[in-house]
């Protein structure tokens, strides 16, 4: 593991019953990059993210955050802002109360610095501060979800399909915010099915397939290897080549 990696993953495996969700994944996410994890459904993207967050306990392998193993730890999560795919909040709390709860939880922890309320303001969450969370629409909940992830200005952001369910304006605001993170030296790990979005924001792509990183490299690498300019086509080409390959093994193309 290199020194400037935020996340270092070594040989991570996880099975759910007979389904092997992660199959010996090794990955590194460098500081100050936007890394997109792509892949079809059930390719292990969510499980990978949940292992980093400690939501899922891996069967084998280790996850390191900023050089320290995360197993059995919880304080390291003060360094992470997480936006789940969809969120349901306690119905009878108000928007303000939810934010108060989350601030309250981190209050006494070291390393929680100044708050970043930009998204909170731009999404107009102050105006609905006294509304009950149970009556909010899905889109509004997603905006709250995003604002929570960025609120504590964490060095690492993990965003699971961040723009799904957001209206176009909010999606643009969020994308701008994600790009700002990189400029500020922060690291972003996101999953997405929207290739255009990935192309716009990410500088590094991990393509997951059947529980393994099938491709792990920069977008330029991917274009060069496949001789395709469009990311979407490049991915398709990559998969086709793999399928017709004699070995049928998933290869790490970064080294080829």
């Amino acid at each position, binding site marked *: 593991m290199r020194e400037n990696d935020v996340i270092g993953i070594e040989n991570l495996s996880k099975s759910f019953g007979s389904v092997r969700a992660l199959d010996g994944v090794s990955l590194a996410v460098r500081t100050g990059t936007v890394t997109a994890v792509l892949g079809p459904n059930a390719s292990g993207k969510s499980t990978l993210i949940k292992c980093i967050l400690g939501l899922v306990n891996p069967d084998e392998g280790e996850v390191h955050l900023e050089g320290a193993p995360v197993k059995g730890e919880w304080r390291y999560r003060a360094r992470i802002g997480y936006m789940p795919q969809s969120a349901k909040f306690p119905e009878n*709390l108000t928007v303000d109360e939810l934010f108060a709860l989350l601030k309250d939880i981190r209050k006494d922890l070291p390393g929680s610095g100044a708050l970043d309320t930009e998204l909170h303001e731009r999404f107009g969450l102050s105006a609905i501060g006294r509304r009950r969370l149970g009556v909010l629409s899905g889109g509004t909940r997603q905006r709250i979800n995003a604002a929570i992830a960025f609120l504590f200005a964490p060095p690492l952001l993990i965003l699971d399909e961040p723009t799904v369910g957001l209206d176009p304006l909010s999606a643009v605001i969020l994308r701008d915010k994600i790009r700002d993170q990189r400029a500020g030296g922060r690291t972003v790990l996101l999953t997405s099915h929207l290739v255009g979005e990935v192309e716009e924001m990410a500088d590094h792509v991990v393509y997951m397939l059947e529980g393994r990183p099938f491709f792990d490299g920069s977008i330029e690498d991917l274009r060069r290897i496949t001789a395709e300019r469009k990311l979407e086509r490049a991915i398709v080409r990559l998969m086709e080549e793999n399928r017709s390959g004699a070995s049928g093994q998933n290869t790490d193309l970064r080294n080829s």
Partner: protein
Amino acid sequence: MGQAVKILTYEIHNLVRSRWLIGMGVLLLAATEVLFRFGGDPSRAVTSLMNVVFLIVPLVSLVLGTVYFYSSREFNELLLAQPVNRTAIYLGKLAGFTAALSLVFALGTGLPFLLHGYGLGDYAGKVAILLVVGEALVIIFSAVAFLAATRYEDRVKGLGSVILLWFFLSAVYDGLLLLAVHAFHRYPYETPLMALVMLNPIDLGRILVLLQLDISALMGFTGALFRKFYGSGVGTAVSSAMLVLYAAIPIALGLLSFRRKDF
């Protein structure tokens, strides 16, 4: 510890505004009031109320607890991604739910007694024991509900298992005991019966309250023996210890399960 208290506080905030809990409080209040008005003297009101309490409280704790825990699953995921340890989340949530339900129960059953002026004097002790035992049942069955909801991913299984448990403890178990008594009526069955009653928290609670009421005199020889044991210092200590154990076991198992769980 501090984090568990924070989570607990917000849980209570959330729950006391829940329509289900408010509805349950109003229902209990109405039931108590009706029993008071039509049940004659307050001693009989306590007896009738006891039957309602021992039927309803476990059921409501089990069903509401399970449903509540399942419905907060996605929020749990968000909480778990925060810098909080799992023990604080689980215990904070459980304590918050138990506290809210306890409050509703205490208000629903206790308030009419106070309003009718029985808060002091002879009946205070009887009402107090009913409330204390009722609270114990709230704690025990809320813990069981959280355990079931943690163990079973499938809501139908979780809810089904707690309803089955309730049915077993509040109907089947007593039926089996009566059968046993009938079958062994030629033998001195009293001591084993006392032990068997202890194995069911609802029955144990019922005995503890019954012994405080005058009608225990009507229960004959068995009643006298029960009174001798449960009325003694040792009996009280043993039955209290059993109730604590009935709460501690599901709390410990649920916590263990929650700490190991994949979300």
